[in-house]
């Protein structure tokens, strides 16, 4: 059984947020919901008033702050779920059975990383509202883009079941009242592919692989570089490793 881990190299991340957008496109996330986030965070004291940073690349005084489900080995969300809708697979993925979740949000209270997101209203409605708002403020008429299909909706249209449990479906096709989160693209992993955010990363800052295979890229990197995991003292045993930014401008050192 493989032991999947993800490495996020903050020295390589440019903060372009392609991973966020690709994830939203593939998983059909409505506006306002992201399963992974990247915030390009300035460091106090070095930033000028107009929030523009100084310094020569790659020695910048800003750091990208990523957030993504850690697929913990000791996941509090799995322990607290009263109905067992959240569960951990043998290869390490923490998944949610969308058909069993009762929407009590205990898992969101338990998760110290804040990666879970609840569907507070029907995702389809959120999208419609957002489109309506954009149209009213946009001088260009909607539908002018002749390339787009009029009823095109983004998001992977195929749903995926893991041993009969619905663990992947375009969120735009889900109804409100359940909790969703990053699945590490379970349907791609089961086909031998990598998660979408890893595939699209322009700087190859996100690396995904099997830690049990000593020749895999993740094993090689983790044996060479210092990597940290978030909130290790809690004992959640996260599977996402961060390589902290080391390229700081000279003034910071």
């Amino acid at each position, binding site marked *: 059984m493989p032991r999947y881990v993800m490495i996020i190299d903050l020295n390589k991340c440019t903060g372009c947020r392609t991973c966020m957008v690709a994830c939203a496109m593939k998983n059909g996330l409505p506006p306002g919901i992201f399963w992974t986030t990247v915030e390009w965070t300035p460091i106090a004291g070095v930033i000028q008033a107009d929030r523009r940073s100084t310094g020569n690349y790659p020695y910048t005084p800003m750091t990208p702050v990523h957030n993504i489900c850690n697929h913990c080995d000791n996941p509090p969300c799995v322990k607290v779920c009263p109905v067992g809708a959240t569960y951990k697979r043998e290869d390490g993925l923490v998944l949610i059975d969308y058909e069993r979740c009762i*929407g009590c949000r205990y898992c969101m209270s338990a998760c110290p990383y804040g990666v879970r997101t609840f569907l507070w209203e029907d995702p389809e409605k959120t999208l419609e509202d957002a489109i309506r708002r954009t149209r009213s403020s946009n001088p260009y008429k909607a539908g002018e883009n002749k390339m787009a299909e009029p009823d095109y909706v983004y998001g992977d249209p195929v749903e995926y079941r893991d041993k009969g449990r619905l663990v992947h479906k375009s969120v735009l096709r889900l109804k409100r009242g359940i909790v969703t989160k990053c699945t590490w693209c379970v349907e791609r992993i089961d086909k031998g592919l990598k998660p979408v955010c890893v595939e699209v990363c322009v700087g190859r800052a996100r690396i995904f692989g099997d830690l049990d295979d000593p020749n895999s890229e993740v094993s090689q990197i983790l044996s060479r570089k210092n990597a940290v995991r978030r909130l290790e003292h809690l004992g959640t045993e996260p599977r996402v490793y961060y390589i902290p930014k080391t390229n*700081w401008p000279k003034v910071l050192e």
Partner: protein
Amino acid sequence: MSHVVKMFRPKEMIFLGLLLILAVIGIVAWIYQLMQGLIVTNMRNIFPWGLYIATFAFLVGTAAGGLIVSSSIYLFNVRELKPIASLASLTAFVFVLGAMAMVIPDLGRPERILNILLYPNFSSLLVWDFIVLTAYAILSLAHVYIGWRPYAARLRQLSEDKIAELETRSFRWGRILAPISLPFAVLIHTVTAWIFAVNAGRPWWFGGFLAPSFLAAALVSGSAVVILASIAIYGFKEDLRHTYNIMMKFLATSTAVLLFLVYQDYFVRWWWGGDEGQILSILFNRLWLTTLIGEFALLFTTIIIAIKLKTSLGAVLSSVLALLGVYAHRFNLMEPSYNVLINKILLPSSESTIPVPIVLGDMKHSYWLLTFWPYTPSPIEIMITIGWLSGIMLILYVLAKLLFSRR
């Protein structure tokens, strides 16, 4: 049916009518929430539990009355509480069911609630809370029944011998049940506290402090509910004066214990500072109304009134203030927990840390990635909560009147 209606005086009818209207408003608000989704609340991803769960914790506490009274009678031999024992068990029964009902509007998919029975995950304390609450409801119902038997016999004007026999039997059963229900009564508060206290990711909740403080808060609100219910049903009669005195003494003592527990905890957190200090700053700045006025001032006044003013006014006033104070205390359960994020990154320049922001979960606001959510309950949340509380009071009042109105 008409004799049932005749039991209520016109003033009572107005009061019950008002409760009914509020309950109906609450149900209408819930239907609106079911149609729109939980977007109509002010809870968001960063703040997933709000007024509903705070009220749930409060209602579990108010169910403590049955325990206090019946265990005092049968285990500590405080005979003076016997006249209000059945009523106290009835408050426990109604409030424990009310607490369970309070969780329903909080669920995103209430129609799937049976999944808790179909696929229970026994490592989740929510499941264990469901189990102990159900057990406590059954035990309270048993207490109500054994207390009601001799009462009903007297109403039907059975012979004195028969009534005396039923009363002995009722006492015997009470003494058998009390040692069983006492651990369950302690457990409902402990397990409810554990729902929160097991989360190491939330410094405001985590640890062994929460369960004792829940128990103290339950003793305060439980005794206050019993005092109010007894005054509403039996009045502040001369032959009950001693009973009320004992209950008010109990109320004052447990309020003092609660305040002590809460403030010794504040001191420890304030001394350490850091995240713990941030909790204190949220409590005393953003939540000053519930912390200083609600929790401290009201509970402190409760102690003074319950000790000094041993009249019907004093009993009502101290109980109402105690309930408001404990409710404010319960409201404080949420915010310092969610708005202190421990997932942080260390910045090299200043040794300072910044929290990793969380996706808000809606598009109503221009910002969507944030570390702090200024939660105040939305009008719908308030309407549903008031509706549920009114419904519980209505059911309790009518049941108490029907079952135990004459002694």
